[in-house]
């Protein structure tokens, strides 16, 4: 049904190219060889089975956090609290992973469910405050991130009983790790989570495009006045949107807890998965396919950055510059659009003069 216009595709692609160009310029200024740099960067992203495995492994949580941000956005809401919801989901998944002894086909779904529920409750708070008291969701969801960070640390210490830095490992029956996937990617940490993430993207599409709930959520996102006039409950949709967004975020945390790390570590700072989700949703234009592709790109850049440091001696922080630049270019898509129109206009004028 929905056709992507040329510009919708052009802006993200152009932004990526421009972001890489800026990266090359920064490399030159720093006295590095950009060709060698990009060679090792791309090799580190996709150049070997191991690189592909690591890229996909890192993409899984980003797909989830991207979907979380995108889902809220489609309802006209900014869920900046994905980061905190990721942490809450992570700790919930790890708790179930450690403290239950169940067959795998129950244990994994139960741990995932726990992550979804815990994060959904966490996301309910800003949604409810917005619907009931008109408190702006950006403020509350940002603040909830800090509460989440310290709450998870407290839970890790007092409930799960971390004495050192790290929890004990989760039971094998709750782990998404797969020896087979590790083997074919020459022992990367690739796990089944990436498959769950793709399934989630399909669910995301299905909810928004096929259900009456999705019809309502999108209507509220586009025009809440008309939705209210038509008899929809705007407040109910705001809360629901946050809760569902939180579920996606919680699963992002579960990817880390049940897949990559098989546990959780005390942390003084954020994981970044939630914040990167904002960039992923932005670059992916809030579409299911776009989010998957953007998550793979950003994950790959992060992974490839390490290889770039090892292979070309270029600090991996440069990747952060590239990602940030891409985000800035996408966010200023309107300006890019303007430039494109201008160029088109000038061309036309030139033709006329001849």
């Amino acid at each position, binding site marked *: *049904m929905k056709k992507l216009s040329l510009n919708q595709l052009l802006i993200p692609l152009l932004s990526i190219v421009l972001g890489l160009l800026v990266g090359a310029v920064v490399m030159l200024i720093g006295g590095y060889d950009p060709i060698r740099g990009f060679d090792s960067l791309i090799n580190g992203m996709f150049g070997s089975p191991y690189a592909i495995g690591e890229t996909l492994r890192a993409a899984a949580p980003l797909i989830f956090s991207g979907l979380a941000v995108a889902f809220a956005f489609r309802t006209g809401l900014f869920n900046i609290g994905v980061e905190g919801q990721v942490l809450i989901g992570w700790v919930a998944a790890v708790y179930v992973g450690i403290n239950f002894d169940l067959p795998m086909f129950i244990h994994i779904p139960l741990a995932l469910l726990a992550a979804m529920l815990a994060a959904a409750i966490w996301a309910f708070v800003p949604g409810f405050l917005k619907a009931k008291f008109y408190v702006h969701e950006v403020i509350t969801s940002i603040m909830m991130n800090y509460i989440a960070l310290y709450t998870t640390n407290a839970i890790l210490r007092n409930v799960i009983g971390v004495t050192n830095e790290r929890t004990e490992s989760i039971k094998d029956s709750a782990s998404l790790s797969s020896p087979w996937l590790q083997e074919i990617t020459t022992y990367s940490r690739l796990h089944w989570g990436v498959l769950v993430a793709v399934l989630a993207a399909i669910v995301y599409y299905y909810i928004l495009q*096929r*259900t*009456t*709930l*999705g*019809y*309502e959520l*999108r*209507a509220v996102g*586009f*025009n809440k*006045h*008309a*939705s*209210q*006039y*038509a*008899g*929809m*409950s705007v407040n109910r949709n705001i809360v629901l949107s946050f809760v569902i967004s939180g579920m996606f975020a919680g699963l992002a945390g579960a990817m880390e807890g049940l897949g990559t790390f098989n546990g959780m570590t005390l942390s003084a700072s954020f994981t970044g998965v939630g914040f990167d989700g904002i960039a992923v949703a932005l670059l992916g234009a809030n579409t299911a396919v776009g989010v998957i592709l953007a998550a793979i790109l950003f994950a790959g850049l992060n992974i490839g950055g390490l290889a770039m440091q090892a292979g070309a001696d270029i600090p991996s922080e440069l990747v952060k510059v590239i990602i940030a630049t891409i985000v800035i270019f996408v966010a200023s898509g309107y300006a890019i659009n303007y430039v494109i129109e201008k160029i088109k206009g000038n061309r036309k004028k030139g033709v006329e003069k001849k």
Partner: protein
Amino acid sequence: MEYVIEMLNIRKEFGTFVANDNITLQLRKGEIHALLGENGAGKSTLMNVLFGLYQPEGGEIRVRGEKVNIENPNIANDLGIGMVHQHFMLVEKFTVTENIILGLEPKNGVTIDRAAARKKVMEISEQYGLRIDPDAKIEDISVGMQQRVEILKTLYRGADILIFDEPTAVLTPQEIQELIQIMKRLIAEGKSIILITHKLKEIMQVADRCTVIRRGRYIGTVDVDDTINEDGLAEMMVGREVNFDAEYSKADPQQVVLDVQGLVVKDSRGLEVVEGLDLQIRAGEILGIAGIDGNGQTELIEAITGLKKPESGKVMLNGKDVTGHLPRKMTEAGIGHIPQDRHKHGLVLDYSIRDNMVLQTYYKEPFSKRGLMNYKAVAEKAKALIEKFDVRTPSVDVPARALSGGNQQKAIIAREVDRSPDLLIAAQPTRGLDVGAIEFIHEQLVKEREKGRAVLLISFELDEILHVSDRIAVLYEGKIVGIRDPKETTEQELGFLMAGGQRGDETE
């Protein structure tokens, strides 16, 4: 003949769309020159070219015989061209004087010389007979007075060519007469005026000549004298004969459908703007509510449609008390609503026409089942509706945003009428639409009435109220102050009631 402005063969394109195609407009010194055209005909584009907001692709502009290149509004100002905007550009919290001098303040060293400013403003206002209170705040004065401030702004800047952009749209009949006097006075003082409008009556009353454009093309310029009448102008504007006095069938009122008793509603600021309103509408009649904007129309509709909870009073629909029910319940109880602001309330502009057609019914079969949408059924419905109501759209998949105002309104009417509501509320249903679309919408309202529905029409256009209604209720300060039979009342009488029964023409 001396021309103060000549716009010759002006061409303005937006991409592939030609908004002005070879349009010529010549303004003589000391005349009121009407620029007539339907919405979207290119009037505003042409004036924006003259005012320096757009650069034309072809043609030339001469001011007082000299070829000029108006690159921005400052140049237009320097050339003595002033624009009285339709939507006032005033600072609400500032006084009249402060607004007039804004940007061109007389200085006393580094401070504003308020005394000199006030004196200058008073001088101009006396010279042109534009009485105002120079120390009143904009937010405290009437719309008519605000418009005077806009006129004074242009005069203060030394304009002697004034462009009036749809100046009567917001005024009461009495205020319109005052404005016409003001315009005549300006001409007597040596100014020249371009009057942008689509109201034929005003052109006949005030204009010396009239230039007509249609769909971006120049149709012609005529002298407004005895040889031309409203029908002739309308034909030039629309391109075909227009029947303004279509006679509709006689109403046959039946049982009471809507009964509003002692309704009190507060606005968003918490002020009571509907103050104990009583109103009855019967099946098979169109009740028109006449009144100046801001007398409680919006809140009355919001209370009847469930968008706002009334403070007190009752809303009875078909004998059942529905006071304070939510919009969905109201819809299901049998209310259809063509909202005043079709972009804000009527449509989800980014949704396709298809999706907009089931905005109130999407949760019902066949459009959905057990929470899953059946978009095929929705598309079929939408296709049937756009065909039946002649909504011009390339397909049902284009976003509502892409349609013209008239077609958007047709789509809303199709959706609302299709539900067969017992009560159809039409708020300003023809605002901003062209003559053809207006005719169509009026016909639809009458059709609904003939089917035995009750129709509540709210409009700020007295012509429309008089033309379509079977009964007219005048709303003033939140109350119905009189009910009249359209055949026995006059615009003057209604205008008198709309202004609270006091002549608002002297000092405000």
